[in-house]
């Protein structure tokens, strides 16, 4: 019973992080139409900034959310305003743009990953924060894991409210449905696309902060998270932000069970789910069509 509780809790926590990453990618791919394979690199940057701030300056990792978030947002925003905008303007069709922006994102992946390796080295780093046991209903949880779960769900909720309750959120949703029409309705679509890309990077940055609190981190870990994010986005349905959130939680639970049975097969189980899904229901859980 206690084991089941632990497995479920771990699944929810990992799922919460996956959900944040996937929501970020969903904004970048679903709205801005950039399949950003360098998404995971923003996680690396977020994680290492937190690690550096905590181990060198002793700044509380949770406080780092406020520092990492805006930095990641700014990088993403500027990248879209310069690189992806010019690609969008010079591509004859959306298909061509998707292909070219995917390749440009590969370039970014190399650039960011290697800057991270030069800045922080490629060895494994970690720190210990809030690592005390918390007893809940007979099962023992680590404090940092509880905090991670809380913050992941909290950030997800705030973002959901932002999307559904504010004017800007409405503009983003309109842009996701039909960018051209949204532009005709008076939405500054270029601004919204850049904003979405920036928000995607912000989510990755947040996830990086949370990941650094519970796992050891490495400058080369980004690609693995990108792959997970892509799987979750497809699982939830391309372009559906609630779908991405739900997909993240589901994949986290599956991964947690797989890790409990055989840790070496976690990634294999993700890929198996992905393959199965593409063959059975390519539109995803909450996708249209």
């Amino acid at each position, binding site marked *: 019973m206690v084991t089941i509780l632990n497995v479920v809790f771990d699944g929810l926590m990992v799922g919460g992080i996956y959900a944040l990453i996937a929501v970020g990618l969903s904004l970048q791919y679903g709205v801005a139409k950039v399949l950003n394979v360098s998404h995971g690199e923003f996680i690396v940057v977020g994680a290492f900034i937190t690690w550096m701030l905590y181990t060198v300056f002793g700044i509380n990792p949770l406080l780092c959310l406020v520092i990492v978030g805006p930095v990641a947002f700014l990088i993403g925003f500027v990248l879209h305003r310069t690189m992806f905008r010019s690609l969008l303007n010079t591509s004859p069709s959306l298909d061509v743009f998707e292909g070219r922006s995917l390749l*440009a994102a590969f*370039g970014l992946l190399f650039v960011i*990953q290697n800057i991270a390796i030069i800045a922080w080295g490629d060895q494994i780093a970690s720190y210990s924060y809030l690592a005390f046991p918390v007893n809940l209903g007979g099962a023992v949880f680590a404090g940092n894991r509880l905090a991670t779960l809380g913050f992941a769900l909290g950030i997800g909720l705030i973002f959901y409210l932002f999307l559904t309750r504010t004017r800007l959120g409405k503009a983003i949703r309109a842009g996701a449905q039909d960018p051209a029409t949204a532009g005709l309705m008076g939405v500054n679509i270029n601004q919204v696309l850049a904003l979405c890309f920036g928000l995607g990077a912000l989510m990755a940055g947040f996830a990086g902060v949370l990941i650094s609190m519970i796992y050891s981190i490495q400058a080369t870990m980004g690609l693995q998270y990108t792959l997970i994010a892509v799987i979750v986005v497809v699982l939830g349905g391309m372009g559906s932000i609630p779908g991405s959130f739900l997909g993240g939680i589901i994949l986290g639970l599956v991964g947690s069970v797989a890790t409990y049975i055989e840790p070496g097969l976690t990634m294999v189980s993700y890929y198996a789910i992905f393959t199965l899904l*593409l063959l059975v229901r390519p539109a995803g859980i909450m996708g249209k069509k």
Partner: protein
Amino acid sequence: MDIVKFISRRSLVPRLIILILLILLATIPLYTKGYTIILLPSIFMYIILAVSWTLFSGPTGYISLAPAAFFGVGMYTAAILGETLPLPVFIFAGGLISFIVALLVGALTLRLRGIYFAVFTFGLVMFIAYVLLFWELHVTGTRGRFVIVVDHTTIYYVMFGILVISLLTAYLIRRSKFGLALQSIGENEEAAAHMGVNVTMVKVTTFAISSFFMGAAGAIWATKLTYIDPFIAFDPFFSFMAVVMALVGGGGHLFGPVIGATFLAYLEELLVTRFAELYKLIFGIILVVAILYLPNGLVGLIQKLWRRSSGGQHADT
């Protein structure tokens, strides 16, 4: 008179140049030793990857990120069969097993469009690596394998042979009805199907043929490395390199990937020896710049300059 006509035919000069170049490359091991013989096969390897990537992805527009998977399958085949079978046999086996894997993967996934296909093929590389790692840790209880050692001249000739055959295949496919069918799939798949093209068959076959060369190249490459493990053999970097080289060179022309691969492979060699830390960073920057400013690749750039210098006497095609 006929001779003048024969020589002035436009396609003859490039063909002669290629022939001379091939003869030159084939005889290089006879009069040089050392570094050149070691350097050239790695350039050939990248050309093979880029050319065979373009063979399928160029005309169809399906972005495959699986080259590393087939390249790795070739490497593992060499590691497993290399001790017991003669060289030509295990090289061919590397290609053949890649071919079969590609048939299976292709039949399963080539109905996926655009980005889905790119993501799936990318995941395939990681998937095989993780399954192999699991297998090695839990079933055979080892990590990695040694590969039979082959001398440099043999590596050179085998790589060169695969290169020539892959180029020839790419050339013949481009000129055939089959190539035309591929092109039509890239332009409009539904229309191609309505015109009577067996879309699935053409796609899967081409995908498998291109994988054959990647696998064969992987098999001989493994003998150069002498030791491999799942993450050395299935390194996504090789997929990126194949795609980058093809695109930097220009995917629309037969020699685009050749030029791109030669240029970047040589650049890699220069950068690795001088700035080992920075070379992937510089590669990333080159990729971004190429995507932004060279939509038709180096070949497009050369053609543009050529047209400009010859005073615009050719039609702008």
